């Protein structure tokens, strides 16, 4: 038993190649394949008009600035979080996770509550004798995108800080390196390694922005490609134009990803690393003031919109009595089912893919290719996927009857890039540490997985699946295309309630939805951390 039939360190294990390949094919069929299906179904060739090119231009500008601002503001915030220990630091780290998990509809309500014409900032400006803000257009889109993505970028930077060996901080402390010199010596190289990746990730997320651009863009002058795709696919039924726009969107995101790969230093460790290293610098008054300022501004910027939604949501809970309440709980049950199904699918897609990416470590080109394939959903349009599924399934089944499973599937595809990003480094590390040992013991199959991976993957898997569950629960998703009003998910019911002028109940539903998303995330994350 000390010998294996195939030399594992050289060839790709067949199991990994098969399952990973299958997941990759399914993902590519959903993303790139859907563009082809929609293009084939088109009735006429619809060229891109001047408004489409303006949409492209706006998409690029807002994505660039969203990514630039998120990354730039993340630097002082990550710096402060990395070197400060204070009561409530754990709570603040949790708050950092909140916006990303927040359903976008709710985040928009929060941003308007703070930055809208009758929001808190405007009221304060009025009281000071200044003009109200007009948030719609580029400013609103940027505020909402930074609200969503600043925490993400900060997290990536904190990981880079955590990847610095702790000895180096001690050596620096002993040498008396402080302030700017320390920044140049240790912090900037870490940031430099993480920033391009963070920039590209935020750029891709914002380049495909839909709900935020639609709600805060203020109309055609601030239309993103994704909104134009929705308009072409779902409204004008101009499928050819939708397919072309989707192809342009793929190209934009692929270019961003390539640029990031070219700029980025080697990838930092995964999400599972500890974000807390003891530090001895930054005791000076200026450093303390700078950190306090960064933290205070970040807390205000992130917590105020959350508070705005919570305030109205709690008030709206009172409206959830009788029939409206029963409908909300029934919809919450459906959303829970969709989220759990979607989480399972995410695991089935992301684990083999991450294993494939990790196993291809020795072939960097193939590994990058596999990783790029796993990231395609970031660039894909859920509307094009939805229309393609509709076109493909309609001859054989009633898409409306499959609305919930399809929503779960598309949501799983959308969460897979994040899950692969989280899992692949963990699998790579586990392989590096114990892979050869397992091979030398002749372990294979499930026994090998259990020996090498299970303990190591538990925490990152819990985190990844929590993320997938929360994203899926909060996303309106393709159910809007196949909707069945007799069986809405919670986000859809929120739209329906608001559409029938039951705005209080809609806010109550928003509160329940937020609670559901957070509970799902925390539940999986805790499961992963063994509590």
């Amino acid at each position, binding site marked *: 038993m000390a010998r294996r039939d195939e030399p594992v360190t050289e060839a790709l294990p067949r199991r990994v190649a098969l399952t990973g390949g299958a997941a990759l094919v399914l993902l590519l069929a959903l993303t790139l394949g859907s563009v082809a299906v929609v293009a084939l179904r088109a009735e006429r060739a619809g060229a891109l008009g*001047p*408004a489409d090119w*303006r*949409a492209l231009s706006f998409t690029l500008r807002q994505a660039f600035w969203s990514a630039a601002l998120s990354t730039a503001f993340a630097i002082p915030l990550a710096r402060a979080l990395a070197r400060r220990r204070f009561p409530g630091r754990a709570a603040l780290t949790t708050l950092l996770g909140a916006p990303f998990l927040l359903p976008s509809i709710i985040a928009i309500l929060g941003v*308007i509550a703070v930055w*809208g*014409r*009758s929001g808190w900032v405007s009221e304060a400006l009025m009281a000071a004798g200044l003009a109200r803000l*007009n948030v*719609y257009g580029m400013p609103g889109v940027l505020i909402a995108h930074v609200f969503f993505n600043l925490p993400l970028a900060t997290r990536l930077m904190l990981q880079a800080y955590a990847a610095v060996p702790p000895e180096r901080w001690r050596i620096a402390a002993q040498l008396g390196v402080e302030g700017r010199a320390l920044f140049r010596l240790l912090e900037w190289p870490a940031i430099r390694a993480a920033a391009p990746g963070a920039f590209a990730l935020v750029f891709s997320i914002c380049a495909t922005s839909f709900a935020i651009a*639609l*709600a*805060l*863009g*203020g*109309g*055609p*002058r601030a*239309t993103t490609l994704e909104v134009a795709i929705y*308009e072409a696919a*779902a*409204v*004008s*039924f101009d499928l050819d134009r939708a397919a072309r726009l989707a192809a342009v969107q793929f190209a934009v995101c692929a270019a961003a990803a390539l640029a990031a790969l070219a700029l980025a230093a080697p990838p930092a460790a995964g999400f599972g690393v500890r974000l807390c290293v003891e530090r001895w610098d930054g005791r000076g008054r200026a450093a303390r003031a700078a950190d306090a300022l960064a933290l205070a501004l970040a807390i205000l910027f992130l917590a105020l919109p959350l508070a705005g939604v919570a305030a109205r949501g709690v008030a709206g809970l009172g409206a959830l009595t*009788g*029939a*409206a309440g*029963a*409908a909300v709980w*029934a919809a919450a049950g459906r959303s829970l089912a969709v989220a759990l199904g979607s989480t399972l699918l995410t695991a089935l897609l992301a684990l083999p893919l991450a294993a494939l990416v990790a196993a291809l470590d020795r072939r960097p080109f193939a590994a990058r290719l596999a990783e790029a394939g796993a990231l395609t959903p970031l660039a894909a349009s859920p509307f094009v996927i939805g*229309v393609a599924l*509709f*076109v493909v399934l*309609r*001859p054989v089944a*009633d898409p*409306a009857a499959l609305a919930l499973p399809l929503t779960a599937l598309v949501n799983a595809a959308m969460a897979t890039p994040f899950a692969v990003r989280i899992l692949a480094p963990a699998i790579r590390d586990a392989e590096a540490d114990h892979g050869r040992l397992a091979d030398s013991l002749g372990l294979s199959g499930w026994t090998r997985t259990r020996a090498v991976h299970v303990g190591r993957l538990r925490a990152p898997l819990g985190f990844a699946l929590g993320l997938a569950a929360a994203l899926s629960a909060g996303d309106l998703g393709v159910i*809007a295309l196949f*909707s*069945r*009003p*007799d069986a809405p998910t919670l986000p859809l019911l929120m*739209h*329906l*309630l*608001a*559409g*029938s*002028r*039951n*705005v209080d109940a809609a806010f109550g539903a928003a509160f329940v939805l937020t609670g559901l998303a957070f509970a799902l995330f925390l539940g999986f994350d805790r499961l992963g951390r063994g509590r």
Partner: protein
Amino acid sequence: MLRLLSGLILAASAAAADDRPVLTVYTYEAFLSEGSPGPAVRPLFEAECDCVLRFVGVGDGADLVARLRLEGPGAEADVVLGLDTNLTAAAAATGLFAPHGLPLPEALAVPGGWDDPLFLPFDWSWLAFVYDETRLPEPPTSFADLLDAPDDVTIVVQDPRTSTPGLGLLMWVKHLYGDEAASVWERLAPRIVTVTRSWWEAYSAFLAGEAAMALSWSTSPAWHRHVQDDDTKRAALFDDGHYLQIEVAGVLASSRQPELARRFLAFMLSEPFQSLLPTTHWMYPAIALQDGLPPAYDGLIAPETSRLFPSEDVPAIREAALAEWLDVMSR
């Protein structure tokens, strides 16, 4: 909603058990949610038709046409309810609709009369800008007045590509100003706070104080009065006329139950269905009701001039007007 849900579950099991025919009606979602006409209509029609009435909600009115084109002749719907006269020509052009073949009820009360062979109207209202008189004591008195109003008379409107009132406003401006429409939009643009996808987003932005007025219907204040006992919301009366929105329904040629479908259209124009509309859909019914309109409708504006393009002219006008609008608004 609970009743609707349990009703549907019962209906589904009943449909499986007996062989009552199922009539499928596509409509927009706002027609179906709690407090809207859908849940109230279903048991009324089922009681008289000995059939199962199944509503399927499809986004907004504008999404209905796209959905029909996506599904083509194989659509499972028998009836489509919720298009308006700005969409009927595009819907007719799909070739999917069959003539309704029904006589018009004597009590029909739609401004301008009706003679469309494919579609029957079920409700109507005027488009209007709704304001709060405590916040805007002196609203504009005409469209021209709106263009010259002070800068703080801001508005929220809907996107004509995704929302039927938004498309109505596009037609309104075109009907008033013809070739000058583009320059009117240029003058209007600075006071448009935001262009939203759906009616409710615009209206809730207005209610939240984001703008002084929202594009809605002349009947919207009745909801505030009836449901909220709030008399401060008013529709601004424009003396150069208001565009009409007339909502319609039609039978699909592919229906396997054309008789049942026509029976539904006839029911749609009968007193039981129509009398629900003023207090569930907040639109004028398409027939004169025996008991008249509810008290909340007293004192609503009654424009002297109604504006409406013939539905067959809309597609050509829409295409040009939309290009114009997109050009101005995306600058």
